[in-house]
């Protein structure tokens, strides 16, 4: 009897060792093939998840071969699992959100993103959290549950960005002259895209000014430098041509 039990345990151990070697090889293969089809961070985590599932199944199979009653182990496991489950609801929620993030793929490693108002570069995507290097430098760890439910803007995936700016000129300024100056500055700027074409239109006759709206597209990487340069050029050119940019004015007549 004791001899039989010994043999069964030995078979169990052999099953585990062989299974472990096979799973290691499968893991290498899955990681390689995942990397061909999906981004690096996602591939690593998907391969890791496959590995854990296979290891769990192997452990169950090895225990079965070694003569343990899996059913009772599963029942016991179920009770323990429930206890752990209640204690780790957040963790499970993060894990599941992580899985949904893998499927949805709103960003990849190295992308410049804005997650609920926090901007930065994606440093790491882990099963439970996403690490973001913020524009100021510090690394921020955001639980995947929050990331999945957040408003995400991915700047890397867009080739061009549009900037919209409104300029107000006084009523005694020459509106045609102002628009010609603005259009020329836009035409002269190399990094403002010709297509989609920029637009300069009058959008309002306000209390103390005429409002001119400028819409122009630039390559994503050039948005801020172009915007800074062009706004400064607008100001200097309008000032040079004696076109006033008025402050808000309120005329009060006293009787």
């Amino acid at each position, binding site marked *: 009897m004791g001899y039989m039990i010994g043999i069964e345990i030995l078979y169990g151990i052999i099953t585990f060792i062989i299974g472990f070697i096979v799973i290691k090889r499968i893991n290498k293969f899955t990681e390689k093939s995942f990397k061909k089809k999906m981004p690096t961070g996602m591939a690593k985590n998907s391969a890791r998840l496959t590995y854990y599932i296979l290891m769990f199944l192997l452990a169950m199979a090895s225990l079965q071969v070694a003569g343990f009653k899996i059913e009772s182990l599963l029942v016991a496991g179920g009770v323990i699992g429930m206890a752990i489950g209640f204690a780790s609801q957040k963790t499970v929620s993060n894990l599941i959100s992580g899985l949904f993030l893998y499927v949805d793929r709103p960003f990849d490693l190295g992308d410049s993103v804005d997650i609920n108002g926090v901007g930065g570069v994606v440093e790491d995507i882990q099963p439970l959290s996403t690490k973001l290097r913020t524009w100021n430098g510090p690394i921020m760890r955001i639980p995947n549950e929050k990331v999945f439910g957040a408003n995400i803007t991915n700047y890397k995936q867009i080739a*061009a960005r549009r900037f919209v700016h409104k300029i107000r000129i006084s009523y005694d300024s020459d509106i045609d002259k102002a628009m010609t100056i603005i259009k020329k500055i836009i035409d002269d700027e190399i990094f403002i895209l*010709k297509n989609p074409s920029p637009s300069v239109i009058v959008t309002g006759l306000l209390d103390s000014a005429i409002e001119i709206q400028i819409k122009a597209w630039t390559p994503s990487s*050039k948005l801020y430098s172009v915007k800074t340069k062009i706004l400064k050029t607008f100001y200097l050119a309008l000032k040079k041509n004696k076109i006033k940019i008025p402050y808000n004015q309120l005329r009060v007549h006293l009787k």
Partner: protein
Amino acid sequence: MFGKQELGKSHKTKYFSITKKKDSFIYKRDQKIVQIVGKKINLNVLPLSPINLPNRLTNHFVVDFPEIYLSPEGKQIIFLSIPIEIGVFVNERLVDTFGFTKPEFTLYGPVKGGIISRIVKGEKVDETSTPKFGYAIMPLRIKNYNTRVRRTSKILINSRYLDFYYGEKKSNKVEKVSTEMIKLDIKGSIKVRNMNKCFFKGMTKVKAKTQLLKKEESIDMRWGI
């Protein structure tokens, strides 16, 4: 102008000068000044794709040319004169790039997934013509595989895989620059292929480091021609 030469003394062209000092050379063009230490230097002037100025923002450029209508299953070879850039290499290093046209950019395709490209104006020229310095001839073979008339007025080029050739025209000493032959196949999808050969005979292939990359098979112009 184009090609490699060893310099041991000062050298001047219409566009730049290299002055020999004691143990160094001073390269000068407009505001650009570069000092190169050495008693002799290797100067190499080469035609480059028009994507480096004012700085390298993209590898792609779109050649806009006068509209062409192609009859069903019709094909045509046209020759376009396009502006290029000139690269000055000293001892195998690129020290200066210059061109003669103002850079302009466009977005080919949608905001998400589209390609930022330089706009290059192509003018139709004769096969035998030699464009002025700073311009190259691009031989373009367009074929319409469809059963209806198609029109085209632009082509998207990935400069990383574009070969240039140069050669001297003996009659008036003006150097001709040409790109490799390009094929534009208009089928269900529109494909641009680099033919990896020069249309003209006796020209020298440019072997700049930036152009030693593996050729990709074709570019899909999925957002129209």
